């Protein structure tokens, strides 16, 4: 595959080595944005949709800037315009309805869509979001998009009677959206498929969907796949066949107990390694994150390693999310300097099995 990574190296990057730093996507929303969402839903309020749109623009500008201040090489707007990773997309898809809230865990619910007819889509999902973010960012922008398999698995299917048929149709809609994003200038697209972790036996279906999506994507566009909170041994090495450049994986949460899964057979794609835990409000030290980064270097060489949090940061307090990102970037820069100086033993397990 073409090298899609070098285009994201900042012109003023201080080291020869480059560990691309980025986020998975979501980021804590400013409290005033949540308040604005409540106000616009309140019929007695004078707060209008136009006001809410302005609030979302402000939040996207703010968080994009916050990512840049952390020093991230590739930024996201923190998904300020999205309420939830499945519902957001189905609100823009025809052929579905929202029969009510369902539980995720405890007293956390989401408005789970029900597919009641053939799915279709007449409006862009993320192009406005991308164009706005790219317009305010001084760094390259990544676009996370929920993948068709997760959209299919995490909605109710009342119409298709087959996860496969529904996922294929949704893959065509995701494909159309990615075409629009690429036309708008997006060069780094991350497909989120957390449902793969819950039903790993469906990896072939995920692969088929990705083939439908990747077929039309130009060579210079970087495609990533994010998977989290699962037993990776059940999808590895089969996932290496997927037509993406990079796998973004949660591994810090389990303290890298699954890292060896990826050492045999050889990991042939780029690895975006989760190096901070998003479900723990304690900020990892730079030293700790550096040690985590070295875990990734056991799997891929530095030129194929991306450094990222485990998953979306949205459930953390905002200042904690910021500190985690700032420490993560500092850790990556320090490891790069040590790599430049030849001070890091890049002991890939496949090369030096012990």
């Amino acid at each position: 595959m073409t090298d899609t990574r070098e285009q994201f190296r900042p012109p003023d990057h201080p080291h020869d080595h480059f560990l691309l730093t980025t986020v998975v996507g979501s980021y804590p929303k400013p409290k005033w944005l949540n308040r604005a969402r409540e106000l616009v839903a309140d019929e007695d309020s004078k707060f209008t949709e136009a006001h809410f749109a302005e609030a979302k623009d402000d939040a996207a500008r703010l968080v994009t800037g916050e990512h840049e201040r952390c020093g991230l090489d590739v930024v996201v707007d923190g998904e300020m315009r999205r309420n939830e990773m499945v519902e957001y997309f189905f609100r823009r898809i025809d052929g579905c309805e929202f029969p009510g809230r369902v539980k995720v865990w405890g007293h956390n619910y989401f408005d789970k869509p029900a597919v009641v007819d053939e799915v279709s889509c007449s409006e862009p999902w993320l192009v406005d979001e991308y164009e706005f973010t790219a317009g305010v960012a001084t760094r390259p922008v990544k676009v996370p998009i929920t993948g068709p398999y997760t959209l299919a698995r995490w909605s109710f299917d009342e119409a298709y009677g087959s996860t496969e048929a529904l996922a294929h149709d949704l893959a065509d809609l995701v494909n159309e959206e990615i075409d629009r994003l690429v036309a708008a200038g997006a060069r780094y697209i991350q497909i989120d498929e957390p449902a793969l972790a819950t039903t790993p036996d469906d990896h072939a279906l995920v692969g088929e969907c990705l083939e439908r999506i990747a077929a039309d994507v130009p060579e210079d566009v970087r495609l990533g796949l994010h998977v989290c909170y699962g037993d990776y041994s059940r999808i590895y090495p089969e996932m290496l066949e997927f037509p993406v450049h990079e796998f973004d994986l949660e591994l810090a949460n389990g303290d890298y107990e699954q890292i060896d899964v990826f050492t045999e057979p050889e990991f042939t794609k780029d690895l975006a390694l989760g190096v901070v835990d998003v479900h723990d409000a304690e900020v990892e030290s730079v030293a700790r994150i550096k040690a985590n980064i070295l875990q990734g270097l056991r799997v891929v060489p530095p030129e194929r390693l991306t450094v990222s949090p485990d998953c979306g940061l949205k459930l953390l307090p905002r200042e904690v999310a910021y500190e985690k990102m700032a420490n993560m970037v500092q850790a990556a820069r320090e490891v790069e300097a040590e790599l430049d100086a030849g001070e890091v033993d890049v002991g890939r397990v496949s090369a030096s099995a012990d």
Partner: protein
Amino acid sequence: MTAFVATTTGVYPLPDWAKDALADLKGHQRGGLVSGDEGAEVTDVYDRARAEVVDLQRDAGLDRVVEGQLRWDDMLAHPLAVHDNVETGGIVRYYDNNNFYRDVRVVDELTADGDVAADLAALADLDVVPEARQAVLPGPYSLADLATDAHYGGEGDFLEAVAEFLAGEVAALPEVATLFLLEPSLVTAADGVDDAATAAIDRVADATDADVVVHTYWGALDEAVYGRLLDAAVDGVGHDFVHGREGSLELLAEHGSHDQLAVGAVAGRNSRVESPAEIRDAAEAAVERVGAVETVYLTPNTELCYLPVGRFEAKLRALAETAQTTEVTA
């Protein structure tokens, strides 16, 4: 004569008003989930919500009424999650769902604490007669599978302790007509099912005079596991006709059935509302394979907490209508 009895598997979704009220009172983090010693305000919400779902079942015309297991924040792991000698840890995935429960870690002896009996006593307070009452509990194999043992030190000892604990819970129940033991792990962890697993089920079933149905789901049972269940001292086995219809029918044709069986023909995890004709078709297909049995329970395949409230209610009505309109067969 085969009687068709409409009932449910419990673990209901909370009414929407109760979702909001409890989120306000208990918060959104795992520290706020049920502990077994909830305060008066939280208890009041659950009492009102329980009365509502009991009314719903009676209004729909179901033949058995459950208390709804609305307090079961941790789904089938609930009876351990509220136990004094169990620590609750991080959030872990519940089977292959996008749902999570608190890791339940048993750190000391499991003695019966009557948590389930207390909720079921409310059915009597709501004037549900004993012949219409149904209790729902996790089966011992599934509960042990969902939990982590940090006290007993051996799989066999742990399963036995969990069974003993559940038997104590069952013995404390008020009079009920039927006990459903939900045992999805018999499907998902079939490899571990041995004599000890069926002995554990027997131990729990022995603790009551009620009819006991071991209800299984997330697919059809493995043939060997079903063979063991046929030897268990229970009144019936429940089968998943949504995710394992063909496999279940083969088992019934090949090995027969107890005098009772449950047909899980309504999808607990899909919002599409089944018609009475569909449910009847599943039940009749089962009866065709086994010949006349005493009782066929018409049920959802899984617990029902995955559904939005409106669809959940419609499914209960469809089950009741099916039982009312299906002729008793000779």
